[in-house]
């Protein structure tokens, strides 16, 4: 099962290495990892995407909590949550194809951020699954380059909104 785990950490030097080191030492697989400050300068938030059965995820959770610099660990996938990932995607696109690409962009809500005689570059925001669907749809044009942030996620404030 795929889990998105939010980890709030003290913004101390080396804290990223601690988390990465924990995953390699314990043999857990990280699919993606994104790190940035939160509303507070003292606290960073890391979003990890991890795959594993319940036993592995339980260990991931506990081992993260055991690190002295870790303030809070939340497995958002255990609850209702919102998830977003940003991707920059450059596809082969001669002028005669621009309309076609633009049509797909509209469907996915992607925005053009750069254009050249040979290519178009889009920014696309959505869940990891949606980003993947967008890449899949663009693949026939020829993807020249793609960069992805990995997902970040938050619990929904009200569980009723699904």
């Amino acid at each position, binding site marked *: 099962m795929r889990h998105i785990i939010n980890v709030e*950490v*003290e913004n101390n*030097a*080396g804290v990223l*290495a*601690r988390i990465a*080191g*924990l995953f390699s*030492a314990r043999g857990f697989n990280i699919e993606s990892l994104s790190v940035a400050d939160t509303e507070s300068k003292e606290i960073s938030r890391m979003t990890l995407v991890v795959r594993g059965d319940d*036993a592995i995820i*339980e*260990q991931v959770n*506990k*081992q993260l*909590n*055991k690190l*002295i*610099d*870790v*303030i809070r660990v939340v497995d958002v996938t255990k609850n209702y949550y919102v998830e977003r990932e940003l991707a920059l995607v450059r596809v082969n696109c001669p002028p005669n194809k621009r309309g076609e690409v633009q049509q797909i962009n509209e469907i996915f809500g992607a925005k053009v951020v750069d254009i050249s005689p040979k290519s178009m570059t889009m920014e696309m925001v959505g869940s990891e699954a949606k980003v993947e669907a967008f890449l899949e749809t663009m693949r026939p044009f020829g993807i020249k380059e793609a960069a992805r942030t990995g997902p970040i996620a938050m619990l929904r404030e009200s569980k009723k909104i699904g």
Partner: protein
Amino acid sequence: MKNAMTGAEMIIHALQQEKVGAVFGYPGGSIIDVFDKLYSADVPFFLTRHEQAACHAADGYARASGKPGVVITTSGPGATNIVTGLATAYMDSIPVIAITGQVPTHLIGNDAFQEADIVGITRSITKHNFLVQSVDELPRILKAAFYIATSGRPGPVLVDVPKNVQQARTTVPYPESIEIRSYKPTVQGHPQQIKKVAEEIKRASRPVLYVGGGAVSSGAAEEIRELAEKCDIPVTTTLMGLGIFPETDERSLKMLGMHGTVYANYAVQECDLLIAVGARFDDRVTGKVEKFAPKAEIVHIDIDPTTIRKNVQVKLPVVGDVKAVLAELLRIVEPKKHREWMEQIKEWKKNYPLYYRENGKIQPQMVVQTVAEMVKHEAIIATEVGQHQMWTAQFYDFVEPRTFLSSGGLGTMGYGFPAAIGAQIARPDKLVIDMAGDGSIQMNIQELATAVLYNIPVKVIIFNNQSLGMVRQWQGMFYNRRFSNTCLRKSKFCPKVCTGLENAPCPDFYVPDFVKLAEAYSAHGFYAEKPEDVRPTLEKAFSTPGPVFVEFKIDKEENVYPMVPAGAPLNEMIRGMA
């Protein structure tokens, strides 16, 4: 700046505020400022001959006393030399504080002379570590280091202090107490869970207590004893738990696991309730984990939630300090008797006792038993790692916690002698003995200088089988007697292939001569090779003041039994030679 202290002074001040009873270490260029302050400070400092030994000594001090051990070394090689010591302490959850010098902050990352990224290197073998970036954060970090090392599940903490931080001045005082928002160990167990444990005990008819090192660090010997008595539960301990429950008690099953007693392993395999207390289901304990305690519901009490369900499925976890949890359990649990179960255990004990065969040579097991008798189980026993360690664990009946010091988790050869030195400093009232193999003792033998010069009267008993016996045992049993490089007489005159048999055409030449070596260090050395000489030799050794080496020549074919082969279930033991 008025009332300002240098970083080096702050380190000394912290050691005094924390009432550290002994500091072990070795000087060097990047820590010279701290040593300069030690020159005139009122801090009991012990100079070893190798940084690794300083770290093991701090560890031994901590295990024997229950107080944190402190080691101070320089940067680079001084710091990397304590890596094994830190890993040893980490695996066995021992509170050690390591303070290392570091090159000045402006040189960090420059491959400066004696620079090593020790914080990076030790990240996975310390409970936590710090690189001090400015002198103003030093007081808080030092306080945090002591707090983190000694609270929750204890462990080593390293503080890396750049030279310019040691020299800079600060007016920030050393804190009296500390709060770390991201670190709050659970002490009290959940009352609801503890209630369920009491119910499990009420239901069970064949319970076993399986007790590990966590009970020792929590100081729960009394509670374990009371629980065993009140509910009539037999007790087996891990290597790390030896002494937490008196092995002379009829309810003691002694040690379980790979080299545990037959009756402990049978009891675990047959029990219907296994209460794990401060233990972590190590592979040396469980054998084939899928077949471990197959008939039992498992209760697991531990302060570290990560140990729970790491290796085995547990029906009832209780996270909390062992002593606190057991105290609460004892308040509510009903007394019980298990006559049938205790009868069964008595029968196993009668049918499958620990034993060895006499063959006219010195039997190491007999030496251990003789030592135990002579010291009335009151000594502190350190061991190195290997066969002698297991014989000691098996044949010395430990009756008190903190009297058996051994590298259980990491299995560090060379641990015992410096650890014994640290233990003797912590407990000057006790006889301290290091049980050693001829391989292990050579890994930190230079500390004889430390022992002699500080007059630390550790008695080292060397079981000399001229081999790396435990690996040799495996080669004999599972590798078709291909004794690759486990003979410590191996030399350039040896044939390419050696069968290790008595008539092997190898020169009978062994180095060093441990007696002469002891004498070279101005210590005393004794040697014996006949069984009847064991007791008189030990009597001489124990009555000789100062550090003593005692060498017993033993048979290299002598193996450790019983043995559960790696990967086999606990009840499939090899009980001895056919």
